[in-house]
């Protein structure tokens, strides 16, 4: 059984705004597989480039909206892949990260990658449904 989770707000429909051939998330086998979450304005779809800190705040807010619309939450994250543009900002990511996943944090891997549109961070996650 594969359920499609629609974008929780108009701005987060990356297909509509940017033509990405992807669903916001898919629920299957008791898990929710999310597409990479980016610092996009949840209402307008505008790209919110900024510091890694500001981008990460927007991303966690968007992720919260997505997971809650699917009946899950940040507390139910199982695995997080955090892509950052430069490993020198690892500690900067952690400072924001702790504010959103304080208790019983999920498994996590952080690595450096080229992120679309020159963003500084992107989160790729799996949560329990």
């Amino acid at each position, binding site marked *: 059984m594969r359920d499609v989770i629609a974008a929780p707000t108009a701005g987060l429909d990356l297909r509509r705004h940017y033509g990405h051939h992807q*669903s916001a998330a898919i629920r299957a086998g008791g898990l929710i597989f999310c597409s990479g979450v980016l610092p996009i304005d949840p209402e307008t779809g505008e790209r919110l480039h900024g510091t890694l800190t500001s981008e990460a705040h927007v991303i966690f807010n968007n992720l919260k909206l997505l997971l809650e619309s699917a009946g899950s939450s940040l507390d139910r994250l199982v695995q997080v892949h955090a892509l950052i543009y430069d490993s020198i900002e690892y500690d900067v990511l952690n400072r924001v990260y702790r504010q959103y996943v304080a208790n019983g944090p999920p498994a996590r891997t952080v690595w450096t990658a080229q992120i679309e549109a020159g963003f500084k961070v992107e989160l790729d996650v799996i949560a329990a449904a």
Partner: protein
Amino acid sequence: MGLIREVIPRLEGAADAKGGSSRPGAMAVRGGDFLFVSGLTAADPQAGESTAGTTAGETRQVLITLERLLGAAGSSLDKVVKVNVLLDSMLEAPNMNEVYARFFPDPPPARTVCGARLPPGVKVMIECTALA
């Protein structure tokens, strides 16, 4: 515990992420309800050799291989839940996306695309998780 773990046999003639058949990894493994597919790169299905090309061409080749592999494992493209696409250059993302959209049904799976350092000459690598 009784969860099934089954290694899916290699496709005949298919190369893998290193462009050869010597990599110590399966192309896909079933675990429980899910099928986990290794990162696939473009390979000539006859010669089993990597076929360097354009991002669009490599994407097409990888997805043809993926479709065959999923079929051989009893799954299919419409059962894919999550795809990770690794590109040699994110400037090529639109070229990948255009070909990609022709393979995956509507509504498509969840997806993350990023730029990464891939094996020499490789422009696209695609891994995915599907329902078995």
